[in-house]
């Protein structure tokens, strides 16, 4: 059996996973995959988080990617970071840079088994701040300067590719080179608030080819989180990575309230495996949940299996299909052969798209107009302590 077959059937423990520590965030990025902004009152306590780390250690999960929201706004962030590292769980945390002061940068540079990833979505403030908010580029850039100054080698700079920044690929690389950092580019998914801006922000067909070509030319030093395997059909050289959907098989998400989803781009009941607070904790969810068990069965490629490119693209991204209203056993909305176009047109005339389970946005989301219903009005900002389930929604 090939290695990839073993992965598709799932392993006894994830290879690595994403752990969103909090839904609180100082920013309100337009495309936020987790619809973050306000803390959820049910978030895991410090003790509960440490218990998760203990489990991960026992399961020999080597490595977690910690994010959010903005993970560093949790009071216990640094304590949890130290705890993970002391328990043989390596950490890479993803941040907008808000707490990466020169002193913190020096501490981090002196700490083993921790990696830092700074998020930007433009190589200039103009492009970046249009998506991430005024001042966000300057804040991230300052964090990068602090890390470089402190001697933190090879931190990550992570960029989500959009219609407005594909032309800046070389500039992103230059920023990474300047700081001795490593560039990471990833795919925009219609997840969380991403669904609201998907039509405007996702790369065009021409731009997808641009991205693919650029990766082939520069891929040696650039990371992708294996997020572009849907582009493999554009050429004969597959992009680097496992080239498979790892959701529920080799990766998953633990969210701030302990819910375990197949992946961070699929925060929806349909992809919820269980909760770490249930009896048996994370390990039981990973090993025995109905959802994950079903994801580890052979999946139907459906309409895609007859396509010559299927082996290369595997039908694309489950979350991208789900949140654009497409069937999971059909083409990806960005199918490079254009096979999704008719299916998408059908969706457009139909009912509402699946909405993410959770919305912790600080202000009302701007939803696309559906069936004559008015667009959501932007309301007053909510306090972080506002626990009303209707807070921020109408």
């Amino acid at each position, binding site marked *: 059996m090939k290695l990839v077959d073993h992965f598709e059937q799932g392993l006894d423990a994830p290879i690595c*996973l994403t752990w969103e520590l909090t839904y609180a965030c100082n920013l309100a990025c337009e495309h936020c995959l987790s619809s973050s902004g306000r803390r959820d009152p049910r978030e895991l306590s410090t003790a509960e988080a440490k218990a998760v780390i203990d489990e991960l250690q026992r399961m020999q999960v080597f490595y977690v990617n910690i994010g959010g929201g903005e993970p560093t706004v949790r009071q216990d962030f640094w304590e949890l970071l130290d705890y993970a590292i002391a328990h043989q769980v390596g950490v890479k945390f993803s941040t907008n840079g808000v707490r990466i002061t020169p002193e913190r940068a020096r501490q981090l540079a002196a700490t083993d088994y921790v990696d830092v990833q700074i998020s930007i979505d433009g190589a200039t403030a103009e492009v970046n701040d249009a998506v991430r908010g005024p001042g966000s580029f300057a804040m991230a850039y300052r964090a990068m300067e602090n890390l470089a100054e402190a001697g933190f080698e*090879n931190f990550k700079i992570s960029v989500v590719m959009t219609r407005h920044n594909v032309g800046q690929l070389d500039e992103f690389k230059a920023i990474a080179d300047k700081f001795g950092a490593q560039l990471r580019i990833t795919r925009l998914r219609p997840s969380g608030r991403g669904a609201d801006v998907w039509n405007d922000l996702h790369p065009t067909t021409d731009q997808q080819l641009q991205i693919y070509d650029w990766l082939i030319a520069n*891929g040696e030093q650039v990371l992708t989180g294996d997020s572009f395997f849907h582009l493999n059909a554009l050429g004969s050289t597959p992009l680097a*990575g496992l080239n498979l959907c790892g959701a529920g098989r080799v*990766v998953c998400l633990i969210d701030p309230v302990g819910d375990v989803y197949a992946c961070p781009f699929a925060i929806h009941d349909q992809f919820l495996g269980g909760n770490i607070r249930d009896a048996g904790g994370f390990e039981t969810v990973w090993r025995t949940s109905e959802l994950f068990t079903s994801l580890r069965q052979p999946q139907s490629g459906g309409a895609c299996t007859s396509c010559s490119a299927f082996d290369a693209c595997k039908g694309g991204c489950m979350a991208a299909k789900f949140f654009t209203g497409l069937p999971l056993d059909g083409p990806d909305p960005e199918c490079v052969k254009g096979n999704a176009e008719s299916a998408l047109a059908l969706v457009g005339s139909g009912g509402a798209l699946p909405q993410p389970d959770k919305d912790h946005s600080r202000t009302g989301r701007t939803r696309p107009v559906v069936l004559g219903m008015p667009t959501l009005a932007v309301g007053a900002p909510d306090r972080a302590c506002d626990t009303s389930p209707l807070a921020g929604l109408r």
Partner: protein
Amino acid sequence: MSERTAHRTVVDTDDTAIEEDLLVEDVSIDGMCGVY
């Protein structure tokens, strides 16, 4: 140390026979989809 990007996976149909013979395969820790 920079993370090396993945070697081609066993999925590559052209080189399947050759790749399967290798006893060790390296992959980037970043090489899994669905992770930040």
